[in-house]
């Protein structure tokens, strides 16, 4: 029962890394193109991934609080500064995406583009470092942070290329595996510690029942979202960001 919660947790964290990693990568590299229209087209390519993607980490945090509160308390005690950097860069990344195109003007948009690139680099780095903190090793934190920054950039470029119909050196399945790798490795390394960090008699059956009842609805909603939104962009797409 507790193991099932652990699997759910790491499925959610892997999902977030893959989905949101593409948004992070596209945001981090968006200043490489010059024209405003090109930047907006690239953001439009990953835009639909933002809302249904970032909820995976929120849900993962919910599972951590609900099923493994002691593990969460331990993790945040060890990784306090990285966790602060993670949520701060996340908030800034979101604000930059939502606000950059809401006003005209070169200065407004360039400022937000730079903030987006900065926050989209700090976010995967902080995520890697937090995973490293779960390993209990500074070296792991540094390596995973660097790995995540590089992997999300490749992943963002691959996904933008797919949606805009451009050629890409690396396929998006490969880059998905690259961004997922640190989470999967963390699952293996931290598994015993995680299971020890559950509540007294394991997660409550009532909570499990609610989650089992909800899962089909969640899977259906997400399946529709991806079916509709992940295809090469066309005239029926929406340019919002």
């Amino acid at each position, binding site marked *: 029962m507790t193991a099932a919660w652990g699997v759910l947790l790491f499925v959610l964290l892997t999902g977030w890394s893959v989905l949101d990693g593409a948004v992070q990568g596209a945001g981090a590299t968006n200043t490489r193109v010059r024209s405003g229209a090109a930047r907006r087209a690239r953001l439009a390519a990953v835009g639909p991934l933002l809302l249904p993607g*970032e909820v995976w980490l*929120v849900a993962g945090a*919910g599972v951590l609080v609900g099923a493994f509160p002691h593990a969460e308390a331990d993790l945040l005690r060890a990784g*306090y500064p990285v966790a602060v950097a993670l949520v701060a860069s*996340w908030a800034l990344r979101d604000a930059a995406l939502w*606000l950059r195109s809401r006003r005209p003007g070169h200065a407004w948009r360039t400022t937000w583009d730079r903030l987006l690139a900065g926050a989209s680099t700090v976010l995967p780095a902080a995520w890697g470092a937090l995973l490293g903190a779960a390993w209990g090793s500074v070296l792991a934190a540094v390596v995973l942070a660097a790995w995540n920054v590089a992997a999300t950039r490749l992943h963002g470029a691959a996904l933008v290329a797919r949606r805009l119909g451009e050629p890409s050196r690396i396929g998006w399945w490969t880059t998905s595996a690259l961004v997922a790798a640190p989470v999967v490795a963390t699952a293996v390394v931290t598994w015993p510690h995680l299971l020890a960090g559950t509540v007294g008699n394991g997660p*409550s059956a009532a909570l499990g029942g609610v989650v089992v009842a909800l899962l089909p609805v969640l899977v259906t909603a997400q399946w529709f*979202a991806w079916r509709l939104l992940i295809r090469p*962009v066309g005239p029926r797409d929406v*340019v919002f960001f």
Partner: protein
Amino acid sequence: MLPEAGGVITVAAVSAADLARLEFALLAAVHFLFVLVTLGLGPVVAIFGSRWAGAERLGRWQAPVLERATRFWGQLYLVNYALGIAAGIVLELQFGLHFPGLLDVAGEIFGAPLAVETLGAFFLESTLLGLWVFGWHVIPRRVHALVFWGVVVTGYASAFTVMVANGFLRNPVGHELVDGPGGQVATLADPLALIFNPAALLSGFHVVGACLMAGGFLLVAVSAWHLRRGQGSGGQWGGPQPADVDEDLWRRSTRTGLVTGTVGALLAMGFGFGQFAYITRLDDPGPAGGDVSGGLDVVAAVGLGLMNAVAGTVVLLGPVLLLMLIGNAVFRLPRGLRGALQRTFVVALPVPFVTAISGWLTRELSRQPWVVSGVLRTDEAVGDQPAWMVLASLLVLVGLMVTLAVVDWTVLGRLARRGGEGLVLGAAPADVLGAEADGEPGGHLLRFATEPAAPSISTEPTTPEGVR
């Protein structure tokens, strides 16, 4: 139960706890301001969207104005929602970051509703909202309207689960204290008691009322600003029937706002008084401590006085204004009186927000010094970070969130003043990218134009300023 340590350590521990509380309070206040608009505006956007879908299907003349209303209020909803999520994420982390004792002692109970919130309600809400925004031209119109109702329902469910968690802190029910390795731990004994806790249910409806009232004030204030400005330029506004689609939009929005504002005030007032059923019972000094409300009577008195005054005024004036909707009287008052009324509506915009924050402060402060009433004291729940570290996180996170919030409100203000022209939500991609002044949009446009665009999506004329 502070350790019997030297003065320096005790002072440091106390100030770390105070800083953690201050950080939580400030972040929660920022988050709450966004939640008020999300929950208050949600049903309004859903109703406009459904009526647009119906009008379009039946070929009614109202379809264009209802489309404009859906897109205008939907766009404000989105730009507000964006920061609401960000603030919520930052807030959620605070429990683990600064109050690990709360998770250690009451994690099983306090964590369960939060897990349901993030894994169920919020997960669905955000997924459906993504479908609504980015599936605008793909999903059939009626299904699209239904998707937004899903956003509203899950948003309210989300708020309710948060109230279950908060209600447990205020009125801990449905739990059993058992001895664990590190001291007493609360385990879930009765999930139904937790859910039907009056501190969750009654207070939940009270908060819903406050949100609807805030949404109503927002609708009325923005509409009044436009109606006041419009009558000066054209001179034809203010007749028995709306002169054009814009005046129609602002009149409809005013009507909707007056209804939701009045209903919200009634709910907030009714369930606000209803809460005293359990509050007075709780404030009997029990065996656990007699200083439950010590020293905070001033905040409570000011908060309660403000809430009473605001809700009472809205409950009295709302029905009068609703009656004045008959024959569009409220839009056809003599010019001077009409201008004064519209000015009042605009100026009153902050009232529900200030009131809601004061209500939340009253509730949370009156629980102190407990984080879980009678079970766990706040100073026992705080982590062992040094004060400087908590102060650093306070400066980073609160500084960032307050800055972003102010920028977001500025953008919302500009979008609100801009009105129903050139809305990016629901615009055709060609209109959006075509309006980009610099660079070579042609090549990028081609990607979005491999087949002819549906006729219904390119009706909005692009303004010279562009679409945003």
